């Protein structure tokens, strides 16, 4: 299979049953993407397939053949944080940080679909991303800031 991850093209022979999240973490060493539940519920493994958020624990790596994947490690440009990362940082939208890579990728995908979401819409769009420690208040504020809304 050949896949472009964070702008770099890779070619690997993989077993069909290898899940995309394990390919990213164990073959490419891109351990920024987390494994939480492995039951498709928690969202820790969220990455972008093209421009859309997907749960990388619920896709086989071979299905990404010829596609473009972006992980949390691919969104900063020339060493500058992505605005969503800055917003999470400034709004204290993380504590342990386990959910953060997934939260950030799901949030970026959400703003692509809906550039000016209401608070309600933000909460709904993140319902498949669990955070065990921060509480969602600051996460919602961060997304509002990244959307250019004064929170």
């Amino acid at each position, binding site marked *: 299979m050949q896949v472009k991850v964070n702008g770099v093209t890779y070619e690997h022979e993989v*077993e*069909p*049953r290898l*899940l995309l999240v394990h390919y990213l973490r164990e073959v490419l060493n891109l351990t920024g993407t987390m494994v939480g539940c*492995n*039951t*498709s*519920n928690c*969202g820790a493994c*969220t990455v972008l*397939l093209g421009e*859309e*958020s*997907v*749960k990388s624990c*619920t*896709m*086989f790596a*071979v*299905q990404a053949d010829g596609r473009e994947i972006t992980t949390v490690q691919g969104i900063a440009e020339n060493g500058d944080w992505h605005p969503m990362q800055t917003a999470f940082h400034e709004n204290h939208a993380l504590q342990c940080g386990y959910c953060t890579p997934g939260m950030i990728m*799901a949030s970026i*995908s*959400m703003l692509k*679909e809906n550039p000016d979401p209401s608070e309600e819409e933000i909460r*709904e*769009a*993140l*319902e*498949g*991303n669990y955070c065990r420690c921060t509480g969602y208040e600051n996460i919602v504020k961060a997304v509002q800031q990244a959307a250019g809304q004064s929170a």
Partner: protein
Amino acid sequence: MIPVAFDYEVAESVDHAIELLGQHGEDAKLIAGGHSLIPIMRLRLAAPSVLIDLDRLDDLNYVRDEGDHLAIGAMTRHRDVHYNELVREHCGILGYTAGLLGDPSVQHRGTLGGTLAHGDPAGDMPSVISALEGTIVVKGPDGERTVGASDFFKDYLFTDLDEQEVVTEVRVPKLSSDTGWSYKKFSRRSQDWAIVGVAAVVEKSNGNIDSARIGLTSMGSTPIRATATEQALSGASPDQVAEAANSADEGTSPGTDDAASAEFRRHLARVWTRRAIEEALNR
């Protein structure tokens, strides 16, 4: 959490998929969005020896206006159904419900054809398609045929599909401005599956009910129509709705599980049928 090993084939067309199904026999399985299949493969509740991937069949991702109905390709993702303008305008219940299936990341992958072919009576789409009296188009080695929703769902995770058949399209009627609809999903947490769901499509005239079609989620081994309530509502006025809804669980056979007892499900079906019809009357 790692599936049993399998061989992987990419279908280049529907005919190619049918051919591959023929070649590999009964141990082969189609995969569309993978959001029902991969979870059960991870748990090793399913262990197909060959997966035939429909993921690349972009020509099955469409919504077309066909006059009196909409035709929707089997590989149309839930998120695309949810945002589609034709669906919003002509079949609101479908777009609304597509937005309830898991979260956006689930909806970016899961497909309309997949959720029907899976045949899970806890799925939201099967009962919505039943209430809409939609049609499922399937193709096999002997060509194409159409199956009405009431004949498509046979039993728990079991549909009218033959081993070598592929769902290619789903057809739903365009709803007129006199048609109200509602889908009510009762679940404990957002993103959860329905403990009970009620899909209502109501034809209205002068503030009364002409006819109503009601599909129930999680009230038996298939999606079920609440036929007793439908009959009671035929020609009814709004103040007869509550009584009609009291027979919503007639002829159903809900199960008991961790989420709810059969008795509680029956109660929910009655309550939510009333609420769904009331909402449909106001929409």
